[in-house]
């Protein structure tokens, strides 16, 4: 089935190559996978042949599904696919509107037909956007702008089906250049995401503060380094067993002149009374505001709560995921190599049949433990995440 959807053989090969890279964990981390995904989708779109919106959406979804199945715990893949799908619909909509506008002066009847839903006597009288259920859903139209948004969102499903019939109205393929440009913006955004998050760092960190962080998040790293241009502060970094990524973090921070203290994970609670702020990175942010972050984050967040220390999450907005209840899934935390916890050479004299070694990679940090999420597009309380998610992706894509 898959092979029939993506026609271009070279592209399909690229998709499969990426899939096997993900399976072998040669590409890890939400940022790296996000960038690879969007590059791949760009290729999929540029080689795709399609006549209608639906066809293109099907192709992109098929490619997306293959990648997601390869690594279902990298939520940024799904987010990027959803984002691209949203862009596709937007570009088609814009093209359809433009086509309607250019051909309406000539007042050809078929041009009107693409613009309007199938003419029923009632909907011809009052536009569909003013029905009471839409009113409930979208709020009341305050200005022409919101009216346009309403109609655009109304237009999605209808025009999708409409283009099958009126494909000659505008050439579907002509949308491609604009679409590729739009995807380029997504790539740019991903490439500058660290700067985006870090740009307001100095508003969040004050002079002589003591910050605690855990693991090596590139977002947090950029954030702290950006703040260091303006302030002097101290960072306590927990080693973060068993990956010990905290050691790299400490090295990197001290190399850029930040006074850094490396501590074992076990003393996070004891030190918390001196800490002014806990800053954590994220793997994925759920719609309820809960966060998947490197294991150890939950200890830090819980200790912070005990001392009423604020917990700040630094994350790019592409990590916001339209899922609510992943924390039900035990496996959602992903598991690392058990040898990191107890290597085979150290296990002499231990009856390994009687010992299970588990190395969960992520912690789920409940939204109640998070004070604010700092993103490349502003700071949000955890309770607001669901709204950002709702605005960023189309509802129909929440299940890919």
């Amino acid at each position, binding site marked *: 089935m898959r092979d029939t959807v993506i026609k271009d053989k070279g592209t399909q090969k690229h998709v499969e190559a990426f899939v096997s890279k993900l399976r072998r964990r040669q590409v890890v981390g939400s940022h790296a996978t996000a960038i690879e995904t969007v590059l791949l989708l760009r290729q999929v779109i540029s080689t795709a042949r399609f006549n209608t919106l639906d066809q293109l959406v099907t192709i992109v979804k098929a490619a997306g599904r293959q990648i997601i199945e390869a690594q279902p715990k990298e939520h940024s893949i799904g987010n990027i696919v959803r984002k691209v799908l949203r862009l596709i619909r937007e570009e088609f909509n814009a093209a359809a509107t433009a086509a309607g506008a250019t051909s309406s002066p000539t007042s050809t009847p078929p041009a009107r037909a693409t613009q309007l839903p199938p003419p029923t006597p009632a909907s011809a009288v009052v536009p569909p956007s*003013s029905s009471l259920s839409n009113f409930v859903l979208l709020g009341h139209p305050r200005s022409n702008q919101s009216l346009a948004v309403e109609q655009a969102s109304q237009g999605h499903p209808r025009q999708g089906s409409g283009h099958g019939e009126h494909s000659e109205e505008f050439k579907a393929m002509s949308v491609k250049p604009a679409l590729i440009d739009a995807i380029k913006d997504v790539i740019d955004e991903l490439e500058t995401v660290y700067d985006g998050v870090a740009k307001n760092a100095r508003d969040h960190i004050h002079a002589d503060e003591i910050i605690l962080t855990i693991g090596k998040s590139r977002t947090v790293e950029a954030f702290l380094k950006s703040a260091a241009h303006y302030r002097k502060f101290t960072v306590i970094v927990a080693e973060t067993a068993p990956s010990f990524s905290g050691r790299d973090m400490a090295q990197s921070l001290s190399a850029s002149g930040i006074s850094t203290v490396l501590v074992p994970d076990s003393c996070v609670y004891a030190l918390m009374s001196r800490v002014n702020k806990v800053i954590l990175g994220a793997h994925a942010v759920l719609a309820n505001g809960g966060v998947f972050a490197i294991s150890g984050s939950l200890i830090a967040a819980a200790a912070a709560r005990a001392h009423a220390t604020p917990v700040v999450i630094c994350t790019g907005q592409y990590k916001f995921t339209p899922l609510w209840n992943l924390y039900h899934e035990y496996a959602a935390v992903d598991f690392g190599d058990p040898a990191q916890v107890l290597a085979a050479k150290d296990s002499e004299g231990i009856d390994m049949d009687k010992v299970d070694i588990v190395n969960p990679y992520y912690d789920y940090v409940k939204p109640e433990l998070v004070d604010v999420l700092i993103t490349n597009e502003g700071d949000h309380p955890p309770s607001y995440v*669901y709204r950002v998610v709702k605005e960023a992706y189309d509802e129909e894509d929440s299940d890919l």
Partner: protein
Amino acid sequence: MATEATTSRPHRSSTLRAVVIPEGSSPGLLEVPRKDSGNTGFAAEDQFDVYSAYKRLLSDELLPMPVAAILVLTEVVANSKAATMYELVEGLKDAAAVLKSKYSNQVGLTAGCDLFIRYVTTARQDFSRDFSHHKAELVRQGKEYAETAQSSRDKIAEHAFGFIKEDAILTHSYSRVVMQALLKANRRKRISVYVTEARPKGLGMKTYNALTAAGIPCTVILDSAVAYCMDKVDLVLVGSEAVVESGGLINAVGTLSMAIIAKAANKPLYALAESYKFLRFFPLSQYDLPIDNSSLLTLPSQKPTAPRHSLTLASPMTPRAVQSQSVPEMSQEQIAKNPEVDYTRPDLITLVFSDVGILTPDGISSFLVGVFAD
């Protein structure tokens, strides 16, 4: 909660009502005598009797109160002789006021009326046609919405489905939307349910019967056993009569205590509410609800003269046999001093599932602002 259609209605016309509304407490507001329809005195739109129309609509068990209110108002529009928007809206407001004056608990009614009136005031009018045409369109929209409103419970059940694992669930009293969510979950997951008896109406038994009939293991617990039960459950599902702007909810009495206990035990509490139950209203305490509470929890004006024999009888010292025979039951008057609904604060609610999506309690106010703010 189920209160609206299925349950409280029988009480409305019974003796209980007469006690709840003390005569003369606010003579202008509450019309105590209402022998029968037809002569409501001030039917807003001259000849049209809103109250009996509303009662007629509510006799359909499945119709929720706010939707019934919307349908009544569409009938008001249909019967209206108004030639301008202003007249029409005034007529609707009058009709809503008449309806509200008939009930001590106006929560669901208000939500429906406010929504429809707001819709009428903001709906774009097609000025190329005359006003009667616009009115017809409003009526059509109202009726269409009432039909689609029925499907909102499916959507809510769908949302709730993702949050239910093979869980023990605690619920309170009877709610149609909770029932639908539970029955849906039961199709694919093994769930078990604890339900409170929910005195004095005892609607928990209705839940129990329906769930048992569907093959879901279900146990009725005393309202006073919620705390005892809480450690055994994984999550709490409650319906609601209205969700207010603070993100809190108004629901059958007992919900608040259940929510406080759930919070204390760190169990999630999910509220299920259709969007037409969202009410633009910001209560700060239990006593702010749009409910006539002048007679609730009143204390006797003078010290009771008779010895409190009820107390001695109920004390644990009493021999069991005597106790079972002669503990006096609560009288109707005593029950009537108790509230039907309470207000659950937003900080006790984990999430609200509604047909417009899954919302955090904070999200309710932004939704309401979207609909009601200028």
